């Protein structure tokens, strides 16, 4: 009887119940993404999605008045978000005069064999009509997406994004290493895991370089870390208050090096397969590092644009926010946070510090929750609806 139960749970750790997309990708959720090409189309996008529980407006602040390199970054991010496995169909909303190439976005999303409805505000002639047309399209796409049913797939189809935020001392001691143990399991089963936050490699990059799959990857880790350090120094060099944040400092973290050493433990121990640019899709399975900032909405946006269907978020002080397109599993090792912010914490791992739970046991609990959430169980941030923020990382000024 018990052996049968164990076999069942082992099987549960090998398969997930997901939406299979025409491009072969899989989804943990089944959303219609309403994507403004530029910030100026946000109002229309928001009103198009309003009241449809399975339509998500991806409101952001970019798309015009930026350097060419940043516009390309915005385009890649929007295409990545719109073609994430969690998205069944897309409403693309443009103003008509934006800097990003809307035809290019439309074609790239269409290539993933998703249905894309296009709403161009200036061409339609009024925002009221644009909203009406967008809502009609949205209703039709939702009905289309509803016909898709979940099916079994191997865990290796999963892309998991990892982030930590509102960190304190317990992050480095309990939740990050527990998440690290969790990371090792899907990577070993052929899945893909992406970890961002280049700023939080400063002072700990040697630990990542040691795990690089080859010399090219090792050099890339050093290069992106030094570039992030140069950017901070060029802007005056005082990161204190931002990295570590005032909250981190109150939580006992003194320097960026200390924060980084705690942060990199969430990457586990597997070899690092490659280094991705922000919002870049990995071309093969494995453990990847994505260049980008620690700032939460930008980090989560990059991970989902790179293909993550589920995000795992380690927090000490308790960060409640999720993401519109992907469930975010919150893990905390701070006993006070697990009690006080229990509405927002999916997995509490404070027993690692107070009751001697092993990191392996805590990591197994995190993995179980991740697989259940991938298969449809709602994460806390989805239940609370604290999941609207999107922000695209760009490197240059607005011009």
């Amino acid at each position, binding site marked *: 009887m018990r052996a049968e139960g164990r076999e069942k749970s082992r099987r549960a750790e090998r398969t997930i119940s997901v939406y299979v997309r025409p491009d072969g990708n899989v989804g943990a959720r089944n959303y219609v993404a309403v994507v403004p090409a530029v910030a100026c189309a946000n109002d229309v996008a928001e009103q198009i999605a309003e009241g449809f529980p399975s339509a998500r407006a991806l409101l952001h602040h970019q798309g015009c008045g930026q350097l060419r390199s940043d516009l390309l970054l915005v385009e890649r991010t929007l295409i990545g978000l719109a073609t994430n496995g969690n998205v069944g169909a897309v409403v693309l909303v443009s103003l008509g005069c934006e800097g990003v190439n809307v035809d290019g976005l439309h074609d790239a999303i269409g290539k993933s064999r998703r249905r894309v409805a296009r709403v161009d505000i200036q061409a339609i002639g009024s925002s009221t009509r644009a909203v009406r047309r967008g809502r009609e399209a949205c209703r039709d796409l939702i009905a289309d997406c509803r016909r898709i049913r979940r099916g079994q797939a191997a865990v290796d189809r999963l892309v998991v994004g990892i982030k930590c935020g509102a960190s*304190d001392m317990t992050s480095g001691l309990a939740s990050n290493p527990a998440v690290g143990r969790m990371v090792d399991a899907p990577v070993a089963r052929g899945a893909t895991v992406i970890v961002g936050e280049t700023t939080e490699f400063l002072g700990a990059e040697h630990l990542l370089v040691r795990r690089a799959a080859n010399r090219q990857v090792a050099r890339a880790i050093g290069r992106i870390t030094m570039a992030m350090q140069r950017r901070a120094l060029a802007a005056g060099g005082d990161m204190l208050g931002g990295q570590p944040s005032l909250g981190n*400092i109150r939580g*006992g973290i*003194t320097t960026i*090096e200390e924060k980084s*050493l705690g942060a990199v433990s969430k990457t586990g121990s597997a070899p690092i397969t490659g280094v991705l640019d922000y919002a870049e899709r990995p071309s093969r399975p494995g453990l990847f590092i994505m260049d980008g900032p620690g700032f939460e909405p930008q980090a989560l946006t990059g991970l989902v644009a790179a293909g993550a269907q589920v995000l795992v978020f380690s927090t000490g002080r308790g960060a409640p926010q999720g993401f519109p397109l992907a469930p975010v599993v919150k893990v905390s090792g701070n006993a006070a946070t697990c009690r006080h912010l229990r509405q927002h914490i999916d997995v509490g791992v404070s027993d690692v510090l107070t009751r001697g739970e092993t990191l392996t046991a805590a990591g197994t609990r995190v993995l179980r929750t991740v697989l259940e959430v991938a298969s449809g169980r709602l994460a806390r941030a989805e239940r609370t609806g604290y999941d609207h923020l999107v922000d695209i990382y760009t490197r240059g000024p607005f011009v």
Partner: protein
Amino acid sequence: MRPGKQPAALIIHPQDNVAVALRDLDPASRVDVRVQGRVRRILILDPIPANHKLALTRIRPGAIVVKYGEPIGEATATIHPGMHVHIHNVRSRRIRPRQR
């Protein structure tokens, strides 16, 4: 939490010169920390909030503060055992504001 059952502070790596307080520690109290299997008693000199660091050895200005067995910054003042180790007496060796 069961007082007495849990150590007051944690040393993460044997090479560390700081420990992490697992609860609020009061000045003039004494706490036992386990260093490489041996228990050492440290007199607490500052109020140390839970999850913050206390010095295990004397750390001179410019000397490296070690946690996780790795450098986390350098001391900007002499730090005595039992003192609070934080932004008032440690700075980053990687990111430092320009001199004004």
